[in-house]
């Protein structure tokens, strides 16, 4: 790991001020992706700004039918939160399926979203459940947040403060896991939300995406059978040692049907 300066701010404003100083500064949340990338020298920031001491990024609160989760909330906390289990069980189970228990004890929702790893689980939750990402500057809707591989709508100096999830009428997340890493080879969040049906796919392409044809079919009839005959073209899907693009395209159909079935 290359040397770096370490900062430990106590407020979001202080963290933003460190970011604004220039250099190649990075925010450190749980560090479960960043520290590993720095050890491999894939990432070599000049400054690391540790967010763990900032109280305003911690905690969860439920207001009516919306639960707002602080950016530094660990996956394990989301997985066992009574409020999340009651309001959005699909989100609790998704959080409980990330990595392994030690990773879940450190990894955070804000870190996972800012990183936007194409095989991560949380992007499917945010896009599938039509969540809102609240930053120190604005509110970003799910459809505008994810741009491309490791790329989001976050601007320089922008810090995720929390994520607000409206309770869906029904939802389920199913993933076909890489047996070693537990990352999604294909993961699908299928949800019926107040704003309509949403189907979000992670793991398959350069970034999470929605499948409009599936959403239309499920809006007419929420049944796995509604998805028969709907396929996602393999052209833009990932091919790697774990799965070919054609296999991923096939998996999307299978996993989406399982998610719809689980959310009946």
């Amino acid at each position: 790991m290359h040397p770096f300066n370490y900062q430990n701010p106590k407020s979001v404003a202080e963290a933003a001020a460190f970011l604004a100083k220039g250099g190649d500064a990075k925010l450190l949340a749980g560090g479960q992706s960043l520290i590993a990338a720095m050890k491999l020298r894939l990432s070599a920031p000049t400054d690391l700004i540790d967010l763990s001491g900032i109280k305003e990024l911690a905690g969860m609160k439920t207001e009516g039918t919306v639960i707002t989760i602080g950016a530094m909330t660990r996956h394990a906390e989301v997985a066992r939160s009574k409020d999340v289990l009651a309001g959005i069980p699909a989100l609790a189970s998704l959080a409980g399926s990330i990595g392994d228990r030690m990773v879940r004890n450190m990894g955070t929702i804000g870190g996972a979203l800012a990183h936007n790893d194409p095989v991560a689980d949380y992007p499917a939750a945010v896009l599938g459940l039509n969540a809102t990402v609240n930053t120190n500057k604005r509110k970003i809707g799910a459809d505008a947040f994810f741009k491309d591989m490791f790329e989001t709508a976050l601007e320089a100096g922008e810090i995720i403060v929390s994520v607000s999830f409206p309770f869906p009428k029904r939802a389920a997340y199913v993933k076909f896991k890489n047996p070693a890493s537990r990352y999604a080879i294909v993961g699908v969040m299928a949800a019926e939300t107040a704003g309509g049906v949403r189907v979000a796919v992670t793991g398959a392409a350069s970034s999470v995406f929605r499948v409009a044809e599936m959403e239309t079919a499920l809006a007419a009839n929420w049944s796995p059978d509604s998805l028969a005959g709907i396929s996602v073209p393999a052209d833009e899907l990932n091919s790697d040692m774990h799965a070919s693009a054609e296999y991923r395209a096939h998996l999307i159909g299978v996993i989406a049907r399982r998610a719809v079935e689980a959310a009946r």
Partner: protein
Amino acid sequence: MKVSMTVNGKAVSAEVETRTLLVTFIRENLRLTGTHVGCDTGQCGACTVHMNGRAVKSCNLLALQAEGADIVTIEGLAGADGTLHPMQEAFREHHGLQCGFCTPGMVMSAIDLVNNHSDPSEETIRAELDGNLCRCTGYHNIVKAVMAAAANS
């Protein structure tokens, strides 16, 4: 930079480089070599310790991230008179080890597992231990040991 924390009940502090990993601090500064470095990429779990009561991978964490934290390593489990922790005793009783390299991490992870699942099934134990790799593939007796420890807790 200066870092201070409590390790196995004892206050410790040292001057470290910012890039010092928690596992390096534990092994090289404190000379507590029971915490192992296996893969060094956050996958195998041999470096698992408890930070404020939660199992974490100390090779994927900066020492500075543990500032002010309460850390417990494998050396902190047994009683002062050498009495093994019930989980260690269960691993001994059921021979939950072969070469022993993964054992400290397995034990630390298993304690966290049992703390969070009061009556885990074999399936739960196998699923929840997925962050700890045993390259001897000695999982069967490890799972037996964790089941026994959970039943006695």
